[in-house]
């Protein structure tokens, strides 16, 4: 089982070798309500840890998603452009946002594990 980390800003990042998949947490999607649009970065672009790099919009709120670590965007979840509701139905599964290559795995060290995150939003 690959390891999943969580940020205080409600992103999750799942490590797969030196690549990682990033999304927003189920708690975050529930707070936002029905997602109507996701603005994704371009594949190949570089992001630095804590850069706002994605915008997730519901009818009443637009929320920045911050890069949990620095790295390069390898792929974005194209399915979201036609069907943003996937984030509501599967925020931590089919509703992933981007796949990225991690510059420095040590940046993961300060993030939370599932239990710590769960406790933080309880």
């Amino acid at each position, binding site marked *: 089982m690959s390891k999943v980390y969580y940020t205080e800003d409600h992103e999750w990042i799942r490590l797969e070798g030196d690549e990682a998949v990033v999304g927003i947490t189920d708690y975050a999607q529930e707070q936002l309500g*029905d997602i*109507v*649009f996701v*603005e994704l970065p371009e594949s190949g672009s570089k992001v630095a840890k804590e850069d706002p790099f994605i915008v997730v*919009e*519901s*009818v*009443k*709120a*637009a929320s*920045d998603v911050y890069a949990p670590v620095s790295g390069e965007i390898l792929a974005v979840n194209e399915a979201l452009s036609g069907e*943003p*509701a996937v984030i509501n139905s599967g925020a931590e599964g089919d509703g992933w946002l981007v796949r990225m290559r991690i510059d420095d795995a040590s940046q993961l060290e300060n993030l939370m594990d599932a239990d710590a995150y769960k406790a933080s939003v309880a």
Partner: protein
Amino acid sequence: MLSKTGAPAKDTRFAARHIGPDDNDIRKMLATIGVPSVETLIGQTIPESIRFKGALNLPAPVSEQDALLELKTRLESNVVARSKIGQGYYGCHVPPVIQRNLFENPAWYTAYTPYQPEISQGRLEMLFNFQTLVSELTGLPIANASLLDEATAVAEAAGIAWRHHRMKRQKIAVANRLHPQSRTVLETRMAPHGVEIVDGAISEDMAAVIISWPDTLGCFDDVGEFIKQARDMDVVVIVATDPLALTLLDPPGHWGADIVIGSAQRFGVPMGFGGPHAAYIAVTEKLTRLMPGRLVGESVDTAGRPAYRLALQTREQHIRRDKATSNICTAQALLANIAAAFAIWHGPDGLQTIARHAVSMAGRFAESVTAAGYALYGATFFDTVTVHAPGKAQALCDAAEEHGYLLRFVDADHVSVAFDETSSDRDLDALCQVFGCTTIESSKSRLPNALRSQPWLTQPIFHAIRSETDMMRYLRKLADKDLALDRAMIPLGSCTMKLNAAAEMMPVSWEKVANIHPFAPDRHVEGYRAMVDDLDRWLSEITGFAKVSLQPNAGSQGEFAGLLAISKYHQSRGEDHRDICLIPSSAHGTNPASASMAGMRIVVVKCTDDGDIDLDDLKSKADQFSDNLAALMITYPSTHGVFEESVRDICDIVHAHGGQVYFDGANLNAMTGLARPCDIGADVCHMNLHKTFCIPHGGGGPGIGPIGVAEHLVPFLPGDPLNSESGAVAATRYGSASILPISWMYIRMMGAEGLKSAAETAILSANYIAKRLDDGYKVLYRGKRGRVAHECIVDTRPFKDSAGVSVEDVAKRLIDYGFHAPTMSWPVAGTLMIEPTESEPLAELDRFCDAMLSIRGEIGKIEGQEWSREDNPLVNAPHTAQGALVSEWTHDYDRQLAVAPAGADQFAFKYWPPVSRVDNVYGDRNLVCTCPPLEQLAS
């Protein structure tokens, strides 16, 4: 207080009619609140330390008739000439059916921005028609519901391109001759972002190229090469055009434009010495999310009926704050609706007939002057002919003026003549005489080859209405769908939906107000200038400032202009580095959006649990950023509806750190005659003339947001847009000049005592409502002595747990009672903010309070499980006639309770919402913002 009964002195009768409650009512209201007098109440509401003790130095009030006569006399010296100046402003005929049934109809002009779609379907439909019209004219799929003026539209378009390139390309090219006023505003708006405006060639580091088609002198340049280069270098193509020309020409969207902007003024709106008019903007699909301003979209209601609503609101300042696409909130809804009605009235063929008339006039004039030996500037043109007259331009302009015509003096050797819908053979003969030539009867078209070849504007609505009977009834049908001030109180907090008195409105239609070109010579507009001087003096007196600029044509524009003045002040003292703007977390979304536009860095100051600015946090932030502090933006009384005690201390802290204090005057209606921003410590303050000073909201604009400034900031006020270095924020010197008479009339008829009484009564009414609603709701945020200012916030959050009822359910249920909802979820999510204004009579305040308390009773029934959480009159609100009368009734409450919850008396004056709850999610996921064309309907 002013008396409505007894033997009223002539000069106080207007104030007594503007103010809803009479002396008897006021006694009752005071008794309910439990204070002996209005003065006691005000003493408990406004901190003693900021009270204005004197009397405002304003002329003694006069009656409606005397004020009208006085204003007419003031404006007598305006000269209504036959304008051929062009440059973005043209003569047009306002169809009388539109003037009387829309422009001068309170059902249209007293409505608010359509945030509550269920009670706004009429004007949303007309704005949807406007968007469809713009999309068809421009050939681009996404059009919004108007911008403030053509010059700001150019700047907004540039902003889209800049953001599209993620703020990394710092240059914008101007390909050919842009209207000078647009160029000035573009410079003003882009300078704070460090974006450079360059002429001519395109390069890869440019965000956009702006092409004028035709250019400001009327000529169509061959822009093919520009477009090709722009495509190759991924430079956004912005085309500034004339909508009437586009009725004949191949739409720019078809030949490479990414953004098309212009002014819809000549579609039925008088020039009005500069405004208000609706500017339009249309973009390609990929730029949709970067589009500023209101966008009307089609969705469905709970019964699956098509229903309109404002779409993609997350782009806007009230949600996105400093990251919004623009600070615009008020736009020009009323004028956009007139433009749409104008297009419906004429249809595509009629519009083309008008366009061809202008083409023919311009062509004949061109033939005539060339036959007499003049050369023309440019080979192709639409309605504007620029004549090369070496050394004679001034003499020609002077000669024309003697015949009653105004031409555009371009330079010593060139003069422009623009033709329009109103031009006649007599005009042509007179002008030919001026140029010393004979009128030639026929001409060949000088339009460019790129003509429209496809059918356009095929949507049924643009073909359905040709008789005046149909038009009158269509406008009535739409108005009947909406809830405006002509039907009921609109208790929107922070919006000041007060009376827009008929006497205030009348001068707007006067010829000497309406039919004057904004660039007419000063000697033609002495009346306007006298009126502007009066307003400058009066508003300065009311706010305590040294000078007022009337140029900003919306509150958001005022904020931007005020912050620019602050920046320039710091720069003038060699303190360019001061760029930190402190903004309380409770601020209106335009504040951070405007600060961001002004190039400032935003630092948020915390608020305490009771809504006040957290003084400790302010001190620490001011200290931390002391070296770079530029300004603090503060709303007073606060957005939470409280007169904060510490406001003087707040101003002192900011000043001590070298910063300036910007007052957001959205809530000025609570202060007129009672306290003055400048005295409290503000350096700049904007006033919303469309709130405090009676300009109607127009269903989402027009508005005016003048700024008052202290002496040291006077040199930094926005100047003449025709001067490229002036820092102008709008296309004309006095912005929306033609609606200034509304505020002039209000102040003239109220006088110092009337204005003070208005503020007192606004505070009294809000405290009365707060007291009455205390029985069912928790009223949040009160001042030190338990009083609210001119509005109050009611907490509906507890009902989510106790009954599954949301703030939206309460808001929509109010529609069944015949009310527009108060402001929802602002400034605090899950609450309602109620502002009654001084104009609402006691009976209406009581009807509203009764409705709110009755709704509280309904919530009680859900709490007591008499009704289920899933099926009750709140979650199902609003109830339509169709739902109550036609559908099978399956609910646990009866039909009468659904549609007339205030009792059977309600049927005598029942407002029926045309749709039930509108589905916001569906609308944003499936964006439709134009009517389908005929072909699509058929298939």
